[in-house]
């Protein structure tokens, strides 16, 4: 009896760490990570205490008598945004509560979720470019400027994806993306087309904006996770700085004033 209990708590502990790490690396806010972990742990009648660092999750599982049964920690190095994973894990945590899933079943479901494919690359490129063109229209651009922004976003995102594949530093990836996009947009202005610099230049790099880090940063700050909030905020600022650096490089190359 004693031994089967210890294996269960070990399995559950490593499972919860997996859940926490998957959520953290796909861009969930701290309160969501804590909520999901606690929800699954309490479905198995354990108390769970978590610490969420900027790149790590550690937790302790206790039973009612407050004896510590499991201590563990796990860390990540790569962060991205994957909303499909967050919503999948959220659904899974409710299934655990409602349908009483067993630990192997949860493990299978987690494996299935992490193997879920992204959208096809061409669809991502096309729709993100379309959203770049929409931004251009909303900031007052005309049809030609929208087309240029579409092309610039397409090329910028392509370059960034390739840079990520080649495992460059994440800020370098953003810089390359911004540089490629603004070089493409700037070429048309240099060629003498009557284009408003602000419309084409300001909107062609908008696909890089660190929306998720900045919004998560404030969400964490409001919830009192000050440390994580600050880390995410500075990460967002670094990305914004990389974008600016890319723009400035292109402007100096083309000698725009």
């Amino acid at each position, binding site marked *: 009896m004693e031994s089967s209990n210890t294996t269960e708590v070990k399995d559950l502990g490593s499972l919860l760490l997996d859940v926490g790490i998957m959520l953290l690396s796909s861009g969930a806010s701290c309160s969501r990570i804590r909520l999901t972990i606690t929800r699954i742990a309490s479905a198995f009648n354990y108390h769970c205490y978590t610490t969420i660092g900027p790149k790590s999750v550690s937790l302790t599982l206790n039973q009612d008598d407050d004896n510590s049964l499991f201590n563990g920690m796990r860390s990540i190095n790569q962060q991205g945004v994957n909303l499909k994973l967050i*919503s999948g894990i959220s659904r899974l945590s409710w299934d655990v509560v409602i349908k009483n899933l067993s630990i192997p079943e949860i493990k299978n479901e987690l494996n299935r979720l992490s193997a879920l494919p992204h959208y096809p690359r061409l669809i991502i490129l096309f729709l993100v470019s379309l959203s770049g063109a929409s931004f251009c229209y909303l900031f007052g651009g005309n049809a030609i400027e929208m087309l240029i922004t579409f092309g610039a976003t397409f090329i910028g995102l392509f370059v960034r994806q390739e840079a990520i594949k080649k495992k460059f530093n994440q800020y370098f990836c953003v810089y390359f993306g911004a540089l490629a996009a603004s070089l493409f947009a700037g070429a048309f202005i240099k060629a003498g087309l009557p284009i408003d610099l602000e419309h084409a230049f300001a909107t062609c790099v908008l696909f890089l904006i660190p929306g998720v880090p900045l919004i998560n940063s404030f969400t964490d700050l409001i919830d009192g996770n000050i440390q994580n909030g600050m880390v995410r905020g500075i990460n967002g600022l670094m990305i914004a700085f990389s974008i600016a650096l890319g723009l400035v490089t292109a402007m100096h190359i083309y000698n725009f004033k």
Partner: protein
Amino acid sequence: MNELILFEKFFWFGFAALGFGILFNAPPRTLFAIWLGGAIGGILKIILLYYNKDAIVLASFTGAIAVGIISIPIAHYRHVPPMIFAIPSVIPLIPGVFAYRTTLGFIKLTGAIGADYNTILAETMNNGLKTLFILMSLAVGVAIPMHVMRKESAKNIRLIKK
């Protein structure tokens, strides 16, 4: 206000949000909701700006609150956490042009101190603060409806009393 232009903007705000939904790998069942949420938040901002040109921060804040409020029934209907829907939907409200002008201003400020230095300083400060406050109001606006309900999960919020 011209209704046709308003409708066009509604349409394009939606696509701006949709692109980010795809980029962030949002589940397919939420994509239409993201399109609609982005469009509603954006159009609300445009309408408010029409009545008061200077209130860009307040207009963005209202748009974000609208997205936050819509996100709760969507979360119920589509069985996703509200943030899945809310984050791509508020991205079209992000002040891209102000951020761009701020960056350019900072670069100009690193140059020589000329006659128009004070003007550039004032403009950069203005644009930078607008960017900062709009970003803050977006994050807070999305979170407010959840905090007002005082529930940690959207699933615990009962829309219709049983």
